[in-house]
Each structure stands twice: as structure tokens, then as C-alpha cells.
């Protein structure tokens, strides 16, 4: 009897139908305090600690004053909590003559990320759809090139892209950067969407064709509404990728449009006398805040979206 009750308590909170994809399906547990569970939770908690330490260190350090950092070790909690490093990182840290911290970069990052995410996903989803359902001659060759492109280090492509953007006159513009992000996001995103659309029953696509829907009608009316989970995955991946980008941000923009990461680099590397670790850490957390929030809020959707098609073959 005890076993049954344990099972029930474990199952509480997991809606067996709605959460089919995210609910556990592995071997089932036996008893809460069995040796196996102690081992399981022990390991998980230990590993979780390893993953959390850097975040802890970042937060703790950012709340300390410089004298305390010089004396204590990095793991001890702050004796005296100060928010000054945060204020400085956000509003007054200097790079050269500009002393407005990360605040300017934040809006630049938003301005870069939003159109880049929308544009790159729009292009990649149409690609994936065309590849999965329309398969015109040669399509797979282009796709193969694209997948190989996923392995090309960005550094290798900087120069050709400088030339490309110069030739089409978009160098140094926001749209230039949007195109660069779309190009480098394309391989993985296209793979993602192609896999997802391939897993949609082909008969659905055929039915729509018999119903008279063309390429775009099928995309917008049939495929798009069904692809929401994978769109969530793509949006999360792109927001993090583009928000965190440094290389393209520094090379393909100008100082007044520098994204946050470039300013983070400027703050961290603008050593004025001693390294202000507390300010650096605060700046680091501030820069990572947007993608972190995205993950904390939509982590569950992320796993579900991946399960819904990204990993099918």
C-alpha cells in the first residue's frame, strides 16, 4: 500500500494528459527514501550546485565593495551589501569619454535583436517549409551547403561579409547587421524548421493542395498555426544568440549603436587602475538579464518545443 501512496504523491502536480510531452516517462520510482532516491537527488543537488556556483559568485561579488573583495574570498557573502556597483555598471561606468554605462547599449541591443529575431525566423521557417514540403530540384543541395555552413567559424567569414555588405551598401547599418544575424542563424534554424515540418503528416499538406491552397496559403493558414512550439524554440535560441553576440556587434556597427555586449567588453576591459570586479560582475549580470529572463520564463516551452519536432530526423 505504501508504494501506491508514494506513487500518487509523486504524480501530483503532473497533469498526465496535458503534460504528456514534458511529463516523466522513464522508469517509475518506488519509495521516496529508497537508496536509489537518495542517490538520485543527492547527485542532482550536487550537480545543481556546480551549475549555480558561478551565478552565486557573480551576484555576491556584485554586491560587495572593492575593499571587501580584496580581502575576502569570492565565495563569502557580502558583509555590507552595496548596490553602487550596479548603479555604476548601468549608468556611470566609463569607456573612453562616454560615462553612461550599459544603459545606452541596452536599447541598442533591443533595436538590433527585435528585427533580427523576426527577420531570421521568418526566413528560416519559410526555408524549412519549402524544404520539407515542396522539395524542388536542387533544394537539398542548397540545404547541404547550409548545414556545412553551420560549421564554418564566424571569424573566417568576417572578411567576405564585409565585402558583401559594402557591395550592397548596407555596411554599418542596422539592416546590414540584421542580415548578418539571419545568415548565421539560418543553418540551425532551417534544420529545426525543416525537421519539424517533415514530422507534420504529409497528407495534411496534400489535403490543403487539393483544397486549392497555394504555397503561401498553406504556409500561413495550415503550417504556421501548427508550428507554434517550434517557433518558441527558435525565438528563444535567436534572442539569446543575437543578444549575446559580440563579434558582429563590434565589427558591423558604430559606437552610437553598439549593443550591450560590446559595452560590457568596454567596461570590463577599460581597466582604470585596478579591476573593479564588482562593477564587472554587475555589468555581466545586467547584460545577461534578458536572455536569462527568457529562459526562466519559457524554459518549459523550450523543452516542449524541442520535443515536438526539433529532434526528429
Amino acid at each position: 500500500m505504501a508504494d501506491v501512496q508514494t506513487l500518487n504523491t509523486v504524480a501530483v502536480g503532473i497533469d498526465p494528459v496535458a503534460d504528456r510531452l514534458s511529463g516523466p516517462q522513464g522508469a517509475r520510482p518506488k519509495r521516496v527514501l529508497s537508496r536509489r532516491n537518495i542517490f538520485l537527488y543527492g547527485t542532482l543537488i550536487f550537480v545543481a550546485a556546480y551549475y549555480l556556483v558561478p551565478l552565486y559568485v557573480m551576484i555576491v561579488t556584485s554586491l560587495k565593495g572593492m575593499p571587501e573583495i580584496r580581502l575576502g574570498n569570492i565565495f563569502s557573502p557580502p558583509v555590507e551589501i552595496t548596490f553602487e556597483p550596479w548603479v555604476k555598471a548601468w549608468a556611470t561606468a566609463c569607456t573612453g569619454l562616454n560615462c553612461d554605462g550599459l544603459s545606452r547599449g541596452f536599447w541598442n541591443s533591443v533595436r538590433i535583436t527585435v528585427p533580427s529575431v523576426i527577420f531570421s525566423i521568418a526566413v528560416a521557417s519559410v526555408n524549412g517549409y519549402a524544404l520539407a514540403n515542396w522539395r524542388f530540384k536542387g533544394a537539398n543541395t542548397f540545404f547541404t551547403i547550409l548545414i556545412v555552413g553551420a560549421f564554418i567559424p564566424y571569424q573566417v567569414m568576417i572578411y567576405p561579409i564585409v565585402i558583401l555588405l559594402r557591395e550592397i551598401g548596407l555596411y554599418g547599418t542596422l539592416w546590414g547587421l540584421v542580415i548578418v544575424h539571419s545568415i548565421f542563424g539560418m543553418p540551425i534554424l532551417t534544420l529545426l524548421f525543416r525537421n519539424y515540418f517533415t514530422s507534420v503528416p504529409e497528407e495534411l499538406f496534400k489535403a490543403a493542395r487539393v483544397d486549392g491552397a497555394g504555397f503561401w496559403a498553406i504556409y500561413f493558414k495550415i503550417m504556421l498555426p501548427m508550428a507554434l512550439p517550434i517557433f518558441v524554440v527558435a525565438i528563444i535560441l535567436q534572442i539569446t544568440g543575437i543578444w549575446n553576440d559580440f563579434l558582429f556587434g563590434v565589427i558591423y556597427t558604430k559606437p552610437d549603436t553598439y549593443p550591450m555586449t560590446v559595452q560590457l567588453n568596454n567596461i570590463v576591459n577599460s581597466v582604470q587602475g585596478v579591476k573593479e570586479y564588482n562593477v564587472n560582475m554587475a555589468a555581466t549580470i545586467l547584460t545577461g538579464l534578458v536572455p536569462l529572463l527568457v529562459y526562466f520564463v519559457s524554459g518549459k516551452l523550450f523543452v516542449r518545443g524541442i520535443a515536438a519536432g526539433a529532434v526528429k530526423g
Partner: protein
Amino acid sequence: MSSSSGTATRRPSQMFRNLNAKIASIPMILTALCVFLGGTVWTIVYSFTNSKLLPRLKFVGLDQYERLWSAPRWLTSIENLFVYGILSLIFSLVIGFLLAAMLDQKIRFEGVFRTIFLYPFALSFVVTGLTWQWILNPDFGVQHLVRSAGWESFTFNPLYDQQIVIYGILIAALWQGTGLIMCLMLAGLRGIDEDIWKAARVDGIPMWKTYLFIVIPMMRPVFITTLVIIASGIVRLYDLVVAQTSGGPGGASEVPAKYVYDYMFLAQNLGQGFAASTMMLLSVAIIVVPWAYLEFGGRKRG
């Protein structure tokens, strides 16, 4: 019906079949041809020149390659990438899978654990590098902590020891990347038919055996996606090294992508950078092209 049933219509031009699909694929075709293929060809052509700051078509044969393969730094870079690549591949897969398997045991607080394992992926390599540089710093990081706890001879300073610096980078890379791998694996495990577990239990097969011989082979597509993600990350390793060690100490943690960047832009020797790029592209091509062609090139489905 004016057209009698005897008339034959000619096969329309292939150009205009699926015209909309082709138009919609123009961005992809342009990217594939102009950027990836074009950029590659361009890079290879200029690797045979002595271009300095600006690309110039003054061919010098294989000079750049001879210099490349006699540069100690390039050899170190290759060796580092090799060590890092193999270890990163193994550890990412193993840790990612083990974590996913543990989370798949109907545990409590699954969401909490999952979020904890996944959040580092939201942080950039630059942030990851800075944080781990800070934690691994012998003067106030882990080593300092253990020493001040009484173990005076304890030494753990991977970022300042040439022999083990690449492992210091690996620690940070795994911290950042294994969460995503775990997520993919978890999704794969959730896609396994529950009947498999029932069958295995009825047959009395131990759990580890079920995973090893039944579940993992069934997860082939997941492993392929994972492999693409891990492998492309390995070749691109750059930001993390720059943020953590800048290639130091004494060039012991140099990687090929950094060699490319440094010679192209710092040394203002494009030819040398392109030669290194070409070597990287070549090794990628040797490994990836046959696989990608088999996986995506053939006419599947139907």
C-alpha cells in the same frame, strides 16, 4: 469541352514548377551560394596570395601553407582543438544524457533542476569566460578558498598552468553548454514509447541495459542534432578562450579560430589568415560534407 481528349499538353518547363517555393527559397539559395560557398571559394583563392591588410591577387603558391605548418602556434592550436574537441564531445554527451536520464525518473522539482541546468546557456561565452576566470583565479578563487580552509599545499590553477589550461576552458564550456544537450536528450527520452519501458520491465532487463541497448539506439535523430550542435561549437571555439585566457599562458590555450582572427586582423596578414581558414574549412569539409550529404542530400521520404 473544346479540347478534345486526344490532344496532348506538353510538359511545362521545370523552371516554373513550384515557382513560389523557389522564390521563397531565394534567401536560402543566396546565402548558400553567395555567402557560404562564395565566401569559401574566395577565402581559398586568396589563401594563395600574399595579401596583407587588404586582399590582393598576388599569388605566392603554397608559401602561406608552408609557413602555417611550421608555426608552433598553429600546431599548438590544432592540438588544443583536438584535445578539447574529443573531451567536449564525450563529456557533453555523457553528462547531458545522464542529467536527462535522471530528470526523466519522475522526480520532484523537475522544472527547477531543468532551469538550473539550462540557465548558463542563456549567457554568452564572454560572460562565461569572465566568470570562470574569476572562479579559477588562484589568488581568490577555488584554490584560495581551499587553502584558507587549511589545506595549504592545494593547487588548482588551470588557467595559469600551461599543461592543463585547456581543461580550465573545458570546465567553463561544459558549464555553459551541457544544459542544452540535456534538454535535447530529455526531449528525445520523452519521445520514446512508454511501452518500451513496460516491455523491458516485463522482460526483467536492468535499467542501465535498457538505456544502453534499447533507448539510446532509438534516439538516433536526437544524437544527430546534438552532434551537429556540439561539433559546430567545437570548431568555432573562440570567444571563451579570448575571455578566459586570451590564449595564454604563453600561448598554451591558442585555438585555430583565434589564429585565423589574429593573423587576419592583428597581424594584418590576410593571406596567412586565409590559409588557416582554408585548413579549418578543409577539415570541416572532410568530416561534415559526406555525412551531411548522406543525411540530407538523398531523396528521402515518400
